[in-house]
């Protein structure tokens, strides 16, 4: 039995409505408890420090085929950010696509304890899990790409929602996945022959189905399966001027799905889906239109996809979009279609303050986060590494909590972008409480992670302690000090063990991999059907397709009972 007591810190725990109260947090055997015995417990004096639940990233590309191909094609990205071996930690490289060990260390240093890898081609699922095993200090989960999977398209086209649900359940278990990821629905299958869909009512070639039917169908399926997270959607027309209309239409289409007042869909990196204008010349922010809709509806959650001005690498399953970027940039371009399932692409990208488009994109992300009134609806991400590397999060925190910080950056942006930006008119500065929602509590709630994102009794003892005294430090004014504090924690505690102290890794702990074991009524029938059809669809054998148990180093299966 190991016990720990974090004493006298300012605790921010929004899920339990604790807003900066001075209190103790007790830990026993990796869980938060009511109290611990005074003598035995290891004490951490958090006087004058901010205590929050471990941070959660709802969307970050850190492992798998796509990410690794990005590493392989970008030696120039690694060479500027190298990490030495120490007695405790492995060597590696950083910057936009850090090696696996470095990914774990850097997240942990910022107080993160749980991350979601949102994009996994089912055929490459073993690869994703092998990499996740090599990412230390974090709990992880990964979302299989299912929006253009032939079995989904075929079942939805037939109108067989239950059949679709059973196949998805099979896939969750087979790939050890956590949520349904949908990327440019219909577009990826079309991309198989080099085409795309351009509205939610375009028909997918060869399958006679529309993106609207795919998204609404899968939202219903998600509900039938009782999955903890909603569908996780990357919208059609992403990254194209004028696409906010598509985004609005998608959200409106989803109103038709029964929701009992709870979110039924998460639109990810919404910044990339909120462009107005009709070409790159007159492209402008649609944050007003999008946030107005969000403020009036409760069936969706979002994450930012905030741009960071730096050299990074875009990677997404949206193959046709990466091709668009290739046509725009002529940069090195990876396309990686996956049989029967999905596609993918990679383009290196340098977001520049001096580019009107990039600066506008930067502004859109912040506008959205600040104009959406309810912080439980929109979370902080960069869609790592698409809009910027994750270890730049402290910058975003500064922009969100300090008008001074964002105006200082805006002043250095392209004049055209400055003129169009809504930021000067927005005075909102997020409090630490709101920030805790956007970086952990809200994400935990949206992901359905019961034991995470809060410090109530029974929760996982994942805690981040920052060098911030809210009584003394005004983070809106002293944003640089705050940024530094969020850059490296005083302590990061994972499962009740101190893993980071004063920004240095002090202990190696393997995180767990969460996955869903979805129980349906006719599991065996689906197994048989898949076995029968397998050779028609894939070039590997049915027996060799699943992610076997030994591919997950520290598994945590979450059993879900489906309605079908």
């Amino acid at each position: 039995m190991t016990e720990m007591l974090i004493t006298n810190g300012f605790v921010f725990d929004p899920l339990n409505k604790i807003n900066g109260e001075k209190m103790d947090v007790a830990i026993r055997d990796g869980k938060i408890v009511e109290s611990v015995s005074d003598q035995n417990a290891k004490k951490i004096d958090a006087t004058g420090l901010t205590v929050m639940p471990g941070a959660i990233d709802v969307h970050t590309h850190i492992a798998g085929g796509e990410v690794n191909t990005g590493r392989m094609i970008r030696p120039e990205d690694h060479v500027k950010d190298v990490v030495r071996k120490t007695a405790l930690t492995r060597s590696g490289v950083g910057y936009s696509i850090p090696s696996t060990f470095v990914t774990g260390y850097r997240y942990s240093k910022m107080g993160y304890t749980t991350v979601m890898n949102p994009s996994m081609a089912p055929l490459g699922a073993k690869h994703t899990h092998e990499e996740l095993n090599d990412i230390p200090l974090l709990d992880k989960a990964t979302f299989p790409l299912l929006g253009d999977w032939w079995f989904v398209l075929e079942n939805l086209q037939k109108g067989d929602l239950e059949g679709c649900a059973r196949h998805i359940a099979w896939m969750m278990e087979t790939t050890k996945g956590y949520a349904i990821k949908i990327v440019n629905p219909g577009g990826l299958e079309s991309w198989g022959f080099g085409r795309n869909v351009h509205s939610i009512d375009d028909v997918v070639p060869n399958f006679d189905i529309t993106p609207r039917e795919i998204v609404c169908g899968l939202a219903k399926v998600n509900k039938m399966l009782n999955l903890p997270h909603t569908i996780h959607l990357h919208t059609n027309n992403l990254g194209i001027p004028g696409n906010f209309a598509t985004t609005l239409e998608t959200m409106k289409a989803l109103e038709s799905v029964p929701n009992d007042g709870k979110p039924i869909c998460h639109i990810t990196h919404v910044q990339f889906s909120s462009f107005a204008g009709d070409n790159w010349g007159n492209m402008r922010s649609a944050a007003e239109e999008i946030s107005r809709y969000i403020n009036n509806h409760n069936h969706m959650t979002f994450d930012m996809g905030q741009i960071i001005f730096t050299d990074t690498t875009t990677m997404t399953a949206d193959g046709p979009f990466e091709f668009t970027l290739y046509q725009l940039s002529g940069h090195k371009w990876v396309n990686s279609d996956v049989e029967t399932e999905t596609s993918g692409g990679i383009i290196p990208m340098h977001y520049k303050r001096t580019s009107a488009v990039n600066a506008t994109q930067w502004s859109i992300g912040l506008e959205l986060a600040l104009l959406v009134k309810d912080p439980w609806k929109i979370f902080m991400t960069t869609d790592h590494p698409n809009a910027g590397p994750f270890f730049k999060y402290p910058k975003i925190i500064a922009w969100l909590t300090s008008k001074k910080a964002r105006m200082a950056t805006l002043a250095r942006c392209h004049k055209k972008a400055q003129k169009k930006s809504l930021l000067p008119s927005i005075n909102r500065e997020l409090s630490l409480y709101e920030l805790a929602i956007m970086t952990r509590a809200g994400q935990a709630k949206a992901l359905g992670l019961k034991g995470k994102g809060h410090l109530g009794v029974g929760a996982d003892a994942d805690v981040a302690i920052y060098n911030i005294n809210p009584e003394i430090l005004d983070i809106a004014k002293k944003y640089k000090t705050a940024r530094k504090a969020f850059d490296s924690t005083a302590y990061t505690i994972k499962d009740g063990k101190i893993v980071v102290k004063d920004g240095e890794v002090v202990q190696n702990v393997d995180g767990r991999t969460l996955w869903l074991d979805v129980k349906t009524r006719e599991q065996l029938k689906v197994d048989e059907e898949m076995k029968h059809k397998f050779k028609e669809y894939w070039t590997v054998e049915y027996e060799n397709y699943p992610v076997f148990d030994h591919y997950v180093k520290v598994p945590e299966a979450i059993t879900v009972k489906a309605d079908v």
Partner: protein
Amino acid sequence: VSVINAVTCPICGCLCDDIEVTVVENEVVKVKNGCAVCEAKYLGYKSEHRIRQPLIRKDDKFVAVPMKEAIHKAAEILANANYPILYGWSSTNCEAQRVGVELAEEVGGVLDNTAVVCHGPSLMGTQEVGIPTSTLGQIRHRADVIIYWGCDPWSAHPRHLERYTSFTEGRFEDSEWKSYLNKVKAAAGKKKLLSAQRVAPKQQRAAVADSLVFNKPPEILQKEGRKLIVIDVRKSMTAEMADYFLKVEPNKDYELMQAIRAMVKDEELDVDQVAGIPVEYLKEVVDALVNCKFGVIFFGMGLTQSAGKFRNIEVAISLTRDLNMRTKFLIMPMRGHFNVSGANIVFAWQSGYSFGVDFSLGYPRYNPGETTSMDILLRGESDAALVIASDPGATFPKRAIQHMVKHPLIVIDPHMNPTAMLGDIVFPSAFVGIEVEGTAYRMDNVPLPLKKVVEPPEGILSDEELLKKILQEVRSIKAQKAQKKAEAA
């Protein structure tokens, strides 16, 4: 008798996973579905060349030693070396490769795999321009133009056409197996006719071959259905089955690709022929490329290791990029060893780089030409080597090997291969994919599980176990050294 199905074949980058192996009393007696190479490996892996126990060279003779002694000696060599090379990795599983990275990091050595002498230029090419590619099933379902450039799958990847390209039934494209059979039948008929006309056998052969491969592009190139085009310096086995064969002059691939790129962009060429191929024929080929629904180029060492090296790959990928402005076109390297892709992948996720990774400064560094094993050997810089799951003794230039054997050489291999014969310490290892399970990556980076179908000979460890033991021993030697140093101070 046990029959094991869905076994993954540990030979080439095709990684066929539909092999059925029959085992009787720990012996493989029958292999179904595999190609000739696969059968030969499963039935013949227990040859007399198998190493049975750890060996150490003493007075120029191998002496069998206990495992513990060999491990200690090997660890001592690596721990004391300034700049060791850890080379090979392509014929073992990812689990062993993972330990390999850790070992290389621990000893501050250079970690390199066989890509350095095969598809290293392909990796460098992709670092220049990226790579539009896909998994093999995508090609099976959709491709209607299939090009093999500088490779001969019929010989080197025998089931590639049958499982993934021309001769497989896809959702949107049919197999061309029947039309190939018709072609063969027609050729046989022609042969009969010729022999009835009493043509000499030598001329007969030439005439038959000509009937299969046309000089002028056949009409079929402009029609619906799958087309197979082979581009090579010689008429390979694959070329004989192709719908069209372009014979490129040796070392002129770069020129030919640039010419095709120009023609794809509708530019006129001022010459009559390029790389030995008439431009008017080339025009018809280009028409077939831009008018297809889904095309793919597979390339082999004919491109990566001929004049131009990685620039060939860069231009091949650029050609594919250009073609994507007109239609859908992809490109894929024909990886050789069954898990060379895996070595690149594992190295990359742990260190950021896929081959030629130098840990001597305490962090990973990559600069092909400088940190690649071949160049280090040729410059005579390394002072020890560990070779695993490969055979540089048979494939590296003499000068490189001469330097390698000047310094201590540790070899881990199931067989007494040429490299092992040169070694100072030789560890026997179990056959990955036959006696050891694990993971391997197919040429299209799809991970597949390898199976253990028989038990390894007694006392023989897997690569992974051996490496773990060596790593542990290295750490304890280093700890002892550090302690001594501290005491002295």
